[in-house]
Structures are given as C-alpha cells and as structure tokens.
C-alpha cells in the first residue's frame, strides 16, 4: 500500500478524497495518522450534515492530541463509517481503505480540481 496513492486527491490539512461517481469518500492520510499516533476516538459528522470546504466537520482524537477534521470540499454528508466507533484504530492500519471516515455529495465538484495531487501532497509533507 503506497503512502500517497495517486488515485486520490489531498488537502493541505492532511485529508484525502476519492471520487466515486456522484459521491466522494474522505479520510485522513497515512502521514496524518502516523503524526497523530494511535487513534482512540473519532467524533463523526451526521448524515445530512452540510459541510463547507476547509471548515471543521468533526474531530479526531489520539492518545496525545485532538485535531479538527476539515471538509475537503463543500457538500452534504451521506454516510459515515460507523465501525470507527468500536475500532478507531483501523485508521492507523488502513487509512485509505477500511479507515474511511465519511461519504458525501459535493455541492461544488469543481473544487476537486484545486486539491493537491499525490505528488504535490508528498512534497508538502517533506517540507512540513
């Protein structure tokens, strides 16, 4: 599993997005999960919740820190990953697969194009 899968787009706040037809899936990157340490809790958004690009939609907690989860695009939440209630650590094990956080319907799909590519994001993590 690549640390920076190139079929995804990334935000400067370490979220990833995958396009799946009309919807998108999002989570946090392997880099972010590694920086945070063992994830112990995710405050998930609710289905139907309106989200705005770069605004907090939830929270992610590790043993040593709490961080905002920021919306990669604007839109409406459709499904959240309920497994994260019982097993938040899956984000550390499989951040791009089983560790997905939520699905949403974008209100402005054009925003996707301005997100970072895998290469650009990887470069940013090296500077950071």
């Amino acid at each position, binding site marked *: 599993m690549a640390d920076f899968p190139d079929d995804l787009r990334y935000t400067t706040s370490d979220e990833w997005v995958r396009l799946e037809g009309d919807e998108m899936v999002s989570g946090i990157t392997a880099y972010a999960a590694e920086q945070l340490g063992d994830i112990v809790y995710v405050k998930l958004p609710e289905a139907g919740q309106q989200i705005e690009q770069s605004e907090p939609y939830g929270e992610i*907690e590790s*043993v*040593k820190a709490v961080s905002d989860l920021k919306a990669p695009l604007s839109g409406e939440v459709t499904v959240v990953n309920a497994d994260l209630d019982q097993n938040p650590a899956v984000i550390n094990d499989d951040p791009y697969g089983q560790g997905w956080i939520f699905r949403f319907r974008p209100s402005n799909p054009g925003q996707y194009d301005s997100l970072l590519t895998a290469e650009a994001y990887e470069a940013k993590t090296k500077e950071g």
Partner: protein
Amino acid sequence: MLRAIGVPSVEDLFANIPEHLRGTLPIPDALSEMETLQLVQALAAENLNLAGRPAFLGAGAYRHYIPAAVPAITGRSEFYTAYTPYQPELSQGTLQVIYEYQSMIAELTGLDVANASLYDAATGVTEACTIAINATGRSTIATVGGLNPQYARVLRTYLHQEGFNLLEIPEEWVLDPEQVAAALDESVAGLVVQSPNLFGSIEPMADLAAAAHDAGALFIAVSNPLSLAILAPPGDVGADVAVGCGQPFGIPLQYGGPYLGIIAARAGLARQLPGRICGATVDGEGRRGYVLTLQAREQHIRREKATSNICTNHQLMALAATVYLSLLGKQGLPELATLCAQKAHYAARRIAAIPGFALASDAPFVNEFTVRTPVPAAEVNRYLLRREIIGGFDLGRVDPALQNYLVLAFTELNTRQQIDDLVSTLESLQPEVAVEALQSAGGVA
C-alpha cells in the same frame, strides 16, 4: 537590560503599585515564637468554637461525625504530599483511590461515569451546564429558586462571561412540574434542580426530568450526596448529570472549604465531562492497574477547544470521602441518612407546635426544613447565639421578603437533648426578645 526592554528606570517597573504603598511599609518588629503564639491564640479566642456546641446550620455544609480513621489515612505523607498522577507507574496508590472514589460516586448517583472530583458544587453546577450547552447547542440555562444561592451566583457569573442566558424560575418552597414545563422553551439547554432544595424540600425529580427532556433540554440534578443513600438516585429519576458537594463525607466544615465537587453523568456524556478521569486497565504483564484516561478532553491537550479549564481534582478531599464511605458502607450510609432524617422530623414536629412558629411547607424533607419565625430569622439566630447555640440559615439573606424564614438542619451530632433545648429556647423567645430589645434600647446591659 532596561534599555533592552525599553524601560527608562527601575522605578518605572513598579508603576502599577499605588504611590502610597511603594517603598518601606510600616511593619512592626518581629515577635518571638511565644509572643506570636499568644497573639494568634488571642485572635482565635474571638471566635466561638463549634466543637461541642449545638449547631443547626446547613444550607450546603453539614457537621457530621468524622471517624478517626479518615484523618489518619489522609494525613499519611504518601497521600498528603502526592502530586498529580501523570506518571501512572509511580502513582498507583493515588490512582486506585480515584478509581474507587469514582466507582462509589457512580453507584451513589445511579449514573454511568463520575470524574475524579471538582473543587466544589458551585463550579460543578457550572460545568454541568457547560455539558448541557455543548450537548444541545442551545444557549440558555434554566435554574430554580431552590438552588443554593452560592451555586447560582457562580453560575450567573460564568454564563454572563461566556455570553449565555440564564432563565430563573421562581419557586415557593417546592416546584410545580407543570409550571416549570411551561417556562421551558427550545432555547433551554439544561434545567438545574436541587433536591433536597435550599428550603430542605424534596423536589418531584422524575416529573421535572420529563419536563426538561420534553423541551429537548438536559436535566441536571444537584443534591446533598448523603441524602442519595435514602432518596431515589439522580440516574434513576432521569438526570443526565448529577452534581453535589461531598463535604458531608468525612470533610470538616473548615470555615467554608476546601470541600468536594461531585459530578457524574450518563455514559453518552463521558467525553463532555470536565476534569480528571481515572480508568482501569492492565499493564504489560496483564496485571490490573489504573491510569488517567480520556485526557484529550482536558485543556493541557485540547487547549482552547477544551470544554473546561479544569484539569485537576480535589484529591485529598476525594480521599477523605472515599475512606469515609468505605467505613460507613452500603448499610451504614442509609442508616446515617435515616438517623438524620428522624432527628429532623422529631424537631420539626416539636417546633411546629411552638406558638408563633410554623413549618413553611408540608413538602417532604430529609434532614433540613424551613420554619416561619415570629420575629425575623436573624433575630432568632442572635437570640440563640447569645445562648451559645448556632441557629439556622436566615433566608432573608437570599431574599428580604423571606426574612421571617429560617432553615434548620439536623445531623447525627444533634442529640435529643440538644434538640429539646433548642425547642425550649425557641419557646422562651417571644417574651424574652421583647425584654432584651427594651433593655438594649434603654442602654441597660
């Protein structure tokens, strides 16, 4: 250095101190240890020592018997000087105490999770309200007239500073759930009710909880934890959060503090609880151990996003309470609460029979009740004090319209003799007060 920080002279560093206080203060010469002791003893002698004297004052702090084992354990230097248990490997004693304390509080309140304690009930009420505000997203807190005025004042200050609203529902001795329900609207995040209340009356908690929930608000129950040994616990009557002052559990009156802030909540609110929480776990070798947990709630990690600035507890007071509760146990605690209630009811019956005195209401009570007095309560208290009896709580201090109402509290330390003496002293009050008033008006000692 002065140049580097841009200050012209050393004197300018003291510019905040008023002119008349700068320079040498007129402090007298040092006293010897013996002289100092005599000075301090003379000052202390101006107080009336509570020890051995009959007292009937409650309203939030109560004089109970403290078994010798309590100070014997809290005085041990391992406990007395211990700091915060951030390093669990060094602090299992402290952490085990917290865990046992939390377990007992959860059981007593009938709720799922308790924290390691707060400073006092006033900030406890405030924190419970913060939980309600965060959980509902609403901005008004509803309180009632029967809430301890000190708790209400602290809450008012806090809400005002944070830009939230306070809805104060007036109360006449005991609440009417329908009236309360009518006062709640969808701006209310939480309803705070104390039971037994300031007047001593037991409130209709289940109905009030329902009223709060119907309005979409949380129900916050404030109580004297000793009363929970014989009353329905907050968790059983629908409370989302329970708070109270743990002073009755092995903590002396201490001129107002330190006391013990108790807070507990149902499971879904665990992550909103302020302050320290201890959890049980296993170490690398599978042995049971205790650690501080859910620390990411607290401000030293969450910083400006923390729900509270509190990241500490009243460890020594919590230890005292834990030892006290262990000594009394599941059987002793209800026995004690019952004994206090029996004494209060005996006193109520006898006082109500004194001409000029009457119970303020017929609402059920535990160890405290309010009497209407023939002369202002403050005068009754002065009259009692001249006979070295400490009276009750003068409700005139809360509301001038209630100046003829006195709240009296009874504990296991009030012997029957003391209660009978109180009654006969009150019986003598009316004619005597008139005489004494004439005497002091005429300047006769």
